[in-house]
């Protein structure tokens, strides 16, 4: 906990917040009183409530379950609801911008449409083999495939990995780590019937081969998932499929 004792009541911190919209913008400085239990989201809220009623940001759950509040904090994508101010403060200053690699709507709010469109493009959607009239399928949690799926499933689609990824920046078509990570969980889901089409999607232009294994996703994922490992798994599956002439 000692790490979190940097800030104390009575101190001030400078927040440089990007203000603007799709047509452009600039940083505006705000001076914020510090309190002991203060997340970056709380600091942004303080600005909106006390100084700048027109400041736009996005949040919902407040506790790291929805990922709505992700933004760039001192150049790094983070959930702001779960980031204590003292953890990220640098030279008594915090710089906030909307998530990288996504179009901005206003101030700290970005448009996640592309992110979710790619999720679908990667066929990140379950294709059923049974119906509601059937009993739930018996699947051992100890099976290799289920363990692979479980290891990657707790993604909350916050787009932190997408913002951290250099390949996304380089190749605008690239489906990105979150979408491919979801595809990997489905490749390992024995109940799923969409494997052939998914294989086509992940080997097509913008698919898993765009990943350069720089692990930006894994080192930034607030849930400590490893999308790079999932993508490596997809690459292997893809190679095998190509050899077998399945793609």
């Amino acid at each position, binding site marked *: *906990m000692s790490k979190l004792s940097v800030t104390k009541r009575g101190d001030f911190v400078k927040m440089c917040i990007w203000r603007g919209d799709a047509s452009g913008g600039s940083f505006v400085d705000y001076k914020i009183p510090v309190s002991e239990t203060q997340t970056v989201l709380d600091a942004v809220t303080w600005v909106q409530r006390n100084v700048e*009623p027109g400041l736009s940001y996005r949040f919902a759950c407040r506790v790291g379950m929805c990922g709505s509040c992700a933004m760039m904090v001192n150049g790094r994508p983070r959930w702001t609801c779960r980031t204590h101010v003292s953890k990220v403060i640098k030279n008594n200053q915090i710089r906030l911008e909307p998530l990288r690699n996504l179009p901005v709507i206003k101030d700290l709010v970005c448009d996640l449409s592309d992110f979710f469109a790619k999720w679908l493009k990667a066929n990140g*959607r379950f294709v*059923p083999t049974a119906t509601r009239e059937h009993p739930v399928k*018996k699947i051992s949690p100890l099976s290799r495939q289920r363990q692979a799926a479980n290891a990657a499933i707790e993604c909350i689609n916050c787009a932190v990995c997408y913002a951290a990824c250099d390949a996304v920046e380089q190749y605008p078509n690239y489906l990105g780590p979150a979408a491919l990570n979801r595809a990997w969980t489905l490749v390992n889901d024995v*109940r799923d019937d969409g494997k052939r089409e998914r294989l086509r999607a992940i080997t097509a232009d913008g698919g898993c081969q765009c990943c350069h294994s720089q692990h930006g996703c894994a080192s930034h994922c607030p849930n400590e998932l490893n999308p790079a490992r999932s993508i490596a798994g997809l690459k292997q599956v893809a190679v095998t499929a190509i050899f077998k002439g399945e793609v």
Partner: protein
Amino acid sequence: MLERIDTDILILGAGGAGLVAALHAYKGSPDLKLTIAVKGLMGKCGCTRMVQGGYNVALGPGDSIERHFMDTIVGGKWLPHQEMAWKLCETAVTRVQELENEIGCFFDREDDGSLHHKAFAGQTVDRTVHKGDLTGIEIINRLMEQVLALPIQRLEEHRALALIPNRAGDALAGVLLSDMRHGTMRLVRAKAVLMATGGGPSMYRYYTPSGEKSMDGLAMALRLGLPLRDMEMVQFHPTGLLGGKDTRMTGTVLEEGLRGAGGHLLDGSGRRFMFDYDEHGERATRDIVSRGIYAQMRSGHTTPNGGVYISMGHLGADNVRNKFRGMVKRCADCGFDLAGGRVEVVPTAHYFMGGLVCDPDTTTELPGLFVAGEDASGMHGANRLGGNGVANSTVFGGVAGDVMSSYAASAGPHQDPDETIVEAEISRALHPFSKKPGNVNSLREDLMDIMWGKVGVIRTAEGIKRGIGQIRQLKAELLETGVGEFDTIFNMTWNDWLNLRSLTETSEMIAQAALSRENSRGAHYREDFPQAGDLDDSYFTLARSSADGISVKQDAVVFSIIQPGESLIEGYHESAAQIRK
């Protein structure tokens, strides 16, 4: 700035109820035009996502729909609408199979591959299906993927402002919405509208729901004069995180399992106090522990922020860290040491059992309007069982989708909206731009204190009456409080104002219903009437708003399936008493 669009089915809300409704409506009538409007992002706001515990379903060994039903009725203190409760328990079975087999959710398994059912408070068998302690995320993510793939019009970051009736006032014509991204307003005409905006009693000093929740659905319904049931029934969770007024973390849930595992509750001086209130100590039920903590706080033995401590350290910090990884990390991220130290906690408003009156098929008094999820009422009675919340939203969301698809398919042309009401609602929404800017947040703080102090965990007639006076005064102040220069694009302060307006209106309804119920049942506790009252004479409250103000009446609970004292299962009451011990 008013755009007009038409759709066949409009769904308000994209939590469990809204998303399942969309899938069912599409399946029922794929040719109909379907639209979902949601206050935040698709799949990211709403409370189903925040479900930790799990989903109650009678699929496990030794379980039956009858047993699930009995637990729901007894847990609800005999106030539930029995047909609604039965529908909930019965349909949960096919709904869980649908979520697993068709939607792609994967719930935790036993080593032999069968579903794992865990024990949960108030249930006489291990029933709750779950995905670790993040069940809601699994359910909502999978539903969202399915919905995104269908040709459904998505209106994200659209806030519902008002339900608009037709000119005759005898059916719903559509909904007025504010498009927060573009700063415009939309009037969406629809043949069927589902209200699934979620409850979210965020008018309390401490609350658990997602931050955008402000009971907009019920506020819109009461403005139309529709009947609301069980409005006094607000469930408090005993252990919300307490970090002071200025952090949004305050009020969020620290899970039930901490007490179950042996966590201690200590007052400000470090003394364990729950045994002063109940022989089960910290392991007593939610309502008892909430009242114990509240009473302790009232007596002044509090922590620096005015609550009590939860202390886990005596169980071994490493052990706690292993067992409650997510909770420990969540606390640590924000500067609290749950594993080895003490964390301040406080009872926190969690779930709203009350809501719009509806039939088990989700229809309401107003033709064209359907309701599901926390906006609906009846199935939980005076208390909701843990695990029945997500069952409720997904079960009745699906029912609504089925019913609306046939309703809309056979409905005539769109209704013409009452333009006078449209105009009045637009100016109502824009009202704060015409006033001198003020401090919306301090009014919000005031409302939270009023509701917490006067209409909270422990209530008295005198306190509630004073609370009602203060709410009315606050409503008047809000109408004189502006939000700054005219700017409707992603203006959060304007939305804070609109949220507060919904909250003040629903708050008064809660207070009036609480005043009317002169006994103590489930979540509602009256210090001046501590007895539960005769079960055979059980009644529920029915509140309506009209030009003359709010009226609350009491209606007898219809015991259409079982009478108090009876059971659908032999030996149920005897064994239940044993298990609860």
